[in-house]
């Protein structure tokens, strides 16, 4: 059984404001309860597979010039700096 308090705590960590989104908790809970189906499958002999790529297959690590100033498309910037709210 998933604890609603736990969902609220995770939402806060994900920077989701639950004061406005309280109704989502029950729906998230329903989805998590459906995921319990994963407890019914035997995965004891399974390994997690991943795709691998060697370094020489990657694109060259080189500077690609860009002709526009991307920062100018932001709403809040001053010179070369992005403006952000104060950190406490």
């Amino acid at each position, binding site marked *: 059984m998933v604890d609603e308090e736990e969902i609220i705590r995770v939402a806060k960590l994900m920077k989701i404001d639950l004061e406005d989104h309280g109704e989502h908790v029950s729906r998230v809970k329903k989805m998590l309860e459906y995921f319990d189906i*994963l407890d019914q*499958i035997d995965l004891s002999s399974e390994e*997690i597979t991943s795709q691998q790529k060697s370094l020489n297959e990657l694109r060259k690590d080189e500077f690609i010039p860009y002709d526009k100033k991307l920062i100018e498309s932001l709403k809040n910037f001053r010179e070369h700096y992005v403006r952000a709210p104060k950190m406490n």
Partner: protein
Amino acid sequence: MNLNTSILKYIEDVKSGKFTVEEFTAATLQRIKDVDEDVHAYLSLNDSAINDAKKIDQKMSSGEKIGQCYGFPISIKDNICITGTKTTCASKMLENFIAPYTSTVVNHLQNEDAVITGKTNLDEFAMGLTTEFSAYGPTKNPWNLDYVPGGSSGGSAASVAANECLASLGSDTGGSVRNPASFCSVVGVNRTYGLISRYGLISYANSIEQIGPMTKTVKDSAFLLNIIAGQDDNDDTTIDNSNVNYLDGIENGIEGKKIGIIKEMTTSDGLSSEVSAATKDAINDFESLGASCEEVTLPTIPYTVAAYYTITSTEAGSNLARYDNIRYGYEMDSEGYEYNSYISKSRTKFGPEVTRRIILGGFVPSAGHAGKYFLKALKVKSKLISEINSAFEKFDYLIAPTAPVQPFRFGEKIDDPVTLMLLDYNTVTANLTGKPAISVPYRISNGLPIGMQIMANSLQEKALFQAAYALETKTKLPEVPL
């Protein structure tokens, strides 16, 4: 002007001078004007479409080399970037986002002289199956405006079905190309993972999602894949397809091929009787085409939807962390806010489904929960890959209906998250395994479409198109009543 034509027929007609690119583009734009108020397939239109068309006409008349597309009109899902145009992902969060670069797929299309008509509607950030989660209102199904068009690429599918373009590019994470293709009676392709560059596709679940063509005919999808597939320096997950021409041999047929009918997808509880009946007829059609059909069981399938939502939510939680309203976002004064509370407040602009997926995406991989959810989901993925690889040792194709049900009315399923998730039941297997799959329009039953899904082994798109084309020749579908 007949707008209900294929890309290949259009190219033939433009070449023979039956009409100019400008004339066809103008007629298409007029059609959009006439029907899109009802259908709402588009979120924005390309203001320079007519000029683009004129330029291609001029190139033709001056004998310059023309790209393979000859100016056919194509719409693009609004999570794929084109320089200088709005790319909203159907979210209020990106309401005014102007893309600073063009995606590789659109570059390919523009280099080959396609005319972009505009950007199409989707569920916000491609999370959904009905377009009801678009922040700008849903797209309607051109076959019956009271019904959902499927999703998330619902705008793309509807734009093709309603003759508001000849083709579209969608993106498929768990069925987002094939499901709306099935619901709107168009062809939708989800190819081998890595075949098409994702550069310029706004990420939702990047280990799984792919861009895919949506067209009126199977041949058109093969044609479009020829143009957009291939390795890309800007996407390291792309793979070499050795410049295969997917149209070559497309009419070769499927005589002697072995087809596996996926038991779990054709006998599931959620399957409607109409879809079940259509599937039986499709199996008969495949047999009459000379293929042999046999049931195959993939026992992991009942766990795939949970695994899929676990993995994609995790990736969404990470990918969508960038929307903090500092780098991207909308006007919201930061005065008086502390850093974290500003970000949380600004993120209330996300719609309900995106909000929930972000919460889920934080929950399922977190310390204390990863073992129960995320790591298990990855193992389900591994198990499914082994199962499907063994199935493909025996079979050339695996088939099932694309969606377990036909299109339904707006509002009918939106309140139950589990019912909504299960609409993906037949499509997520291709995404989790990276195998190619295609949805072929098969039947119109009670005025609403049913599509059949064919899957093939990795990089067997050419064979996939052969089977899809063979099935298409067995169907005779009515024109859209719009």
